């Protein structure tokens, strides 16, 4: 396209005021992107408001918080009802702890292998497979817990019930490992290669490079990976419900069945009458979960950011 040179002042002014297609596309794109960005905040606030509104009246007027956190009996349908969530809190903590014992070594080893040892095609394939592993639906993991781990735990450890903390922890650990692997590998990748080169030039072996230079430098990112993995384990519902045995008693060992906060909400919300105390109490549990995961994510974010600033 050829443009005629603007000879008079008038036509230059018109030319400068012209809005071409690119200008409009830019405006549209900026609008679309900002709406997307702002809606994230909107959703968080809306969800928080919804959960809060459902449980607020009950939590404010009739709930004893000390009973909620430390009470051992969760009997919302008995008269008089009790709302002690200690068993679920303990169950969640136990199962998450076992999950991390499984997931942290597994994902860190995988990340170190993918990030530091594997090269070329093998590395690309592994990354794809890890992401594929993260995409397995949680109900499938639940079925594996029920049908595979359950009899396996019974026969290996000689226990009566294979649906317990160990089972749910293993399942959750395997579920959290892929995302933790991806995050940990990102953290390793962020370590400048000049550090590795410097250490190798001084005569460090590959392993010395990794544990003396790469891992210490990647520690904030690795901590964030663990925290997000914990968040993932906390929030998982259906697989734990299927694998944990769902028993409302604080577990004393990994071979005891247990219940988690999420599984209890999932299992009981359907049978609780809308707006009943029981219904509202479940929303209070949801609120507790929300705060815990929120705090974990915030902490992970702080760790990563804090490192970047320094």
């Amino acid at each position: 396209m050829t443009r005629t040179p603007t000879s008079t002042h008038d036509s230059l002014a018109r030319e400068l005021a012209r809005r071409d297609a690119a200008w409009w596309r830019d405006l549209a794109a900026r609008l679309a992107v900002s709406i997307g960005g702002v809606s994230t905040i909107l959703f968080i606030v809306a969800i928080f408001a919804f959960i809060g509104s459902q449980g607020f009246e009950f939590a404010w007027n009739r709930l004893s918080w000390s009973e909620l956190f430390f009470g051992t009996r969760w009997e919302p349908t008995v008269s008089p009802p009790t709302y002690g969530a200690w068993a679920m809190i303990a169950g969640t903590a136990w199962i998450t702890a076992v999950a991390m014992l499984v997931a942290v070594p597994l994902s860190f080893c995988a990340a170190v292998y993918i990030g530091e040892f594997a090269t070329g095609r093998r590395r690309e394939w592994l990354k794809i497979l890890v992401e594929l592993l993260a995409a397995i639906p949680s109900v499938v993991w639940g079925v594996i817990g029920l049908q595979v781990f359950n009899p396996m735990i019974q026969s290996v450890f000689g226990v009566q019930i294979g649906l317990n903390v160990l089972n749910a922890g293993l399942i959750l650990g395997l579920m959290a490992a892929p995302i933790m692997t991806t995050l940990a590998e990102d953290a390793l990748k962020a370590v400048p290669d000049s550090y590795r080169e410097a250490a190798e030039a001084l005569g460090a072996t590959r392993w010395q490079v990794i544990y003396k230079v790469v891992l210490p430098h990647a520690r904030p990112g690795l901590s964030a990976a663990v925290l997000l993995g914990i968040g993932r384990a906390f929030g998982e519902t259906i697989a734990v419900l299927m694998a944990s045995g769902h028993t409302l008693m604080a577990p004393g060992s990994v071979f005891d069945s247990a219940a988690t906060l999420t599984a209890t909400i999932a299992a009981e919300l359907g049978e609780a009458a809308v707006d009943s105390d029981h219904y509202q109490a479940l929303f209070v549990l949801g609120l507790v979960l929300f705060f815990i995961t929120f705090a974990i994510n915030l902490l992970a974010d702080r760790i990563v950011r804090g490192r970047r600033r320094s």
Partner: protein
Amino acid sequence: MVDLPKRRPDEVLVHAKEAPPAIEVARLNLWYGKFQALHDVDLTIKSGIVTALIGPSGCGKSTLLRSCNRINERLGYVTTTGTIKVLGEDIYGEQASRIQVRAHVGMVFQRPNPLPLSIRDNVLFGHRLHATRHSSRADEDGMVEQALREVLLWDRVKDRLQHKATGLSLEEQQKLCIARLLPTKPTVLLMDEPCSALDPEATSAVEDLIWDLRGHYSILIVTHNMAQARRASDECVFMLMGRVVEHSATEAMFVSPQQQQTSDYIEGRFG
């Protein structure tokens, strides 16, 4: 206090003639994948002097330098044939471990690359990798002081040895990168354009340091800077397209180059 014997330049050169060569490269060929970067390189680097490798970008001078402590092998796709002997020992031989090679042949990089550790830990890093037994704190302190004195950094950093090395100025970082090679008592120091990330003042300080270290170590330095090669080396090796074109005393090369290509290059007609 650590006292370093100073040698006069002529003494250094006499020493260089008598001592066995620091590095002997014989029929060295090197490929990156299918691309051949070095062709039949034969080269003898004398002991105790500074030898500069010059040539245009891509001529293979860095590749040759990086072959001398086998850091090239970090890239999985490098193939090398021929031999490189350091003090008479083939570093590519079956018995040679590249870990040990690197303790004896230190390397300084283009951009100062101190590790994200304290100054003290940086100096001791190589030593701790190679020490066969645990050193006492006093031994380590002595080692740190001696290494930092050798690179003329001690007085500037002695009160902040626990500070992060990455907080030092670029000049100090580069000197630290030289200092951390010294505790493993290397015989050869390789330097890959060690001043190219530094400002003129820092360049001159690091050059002076390199000149000071001469005699104690055999130094092979890659440089793009003709003036630097001229003022800070005893011998010069001119490379082109993966081959050694000319190797002579620095003065001789700059005053009366034997090859047309050499004179074209040092007069700035290409490169």
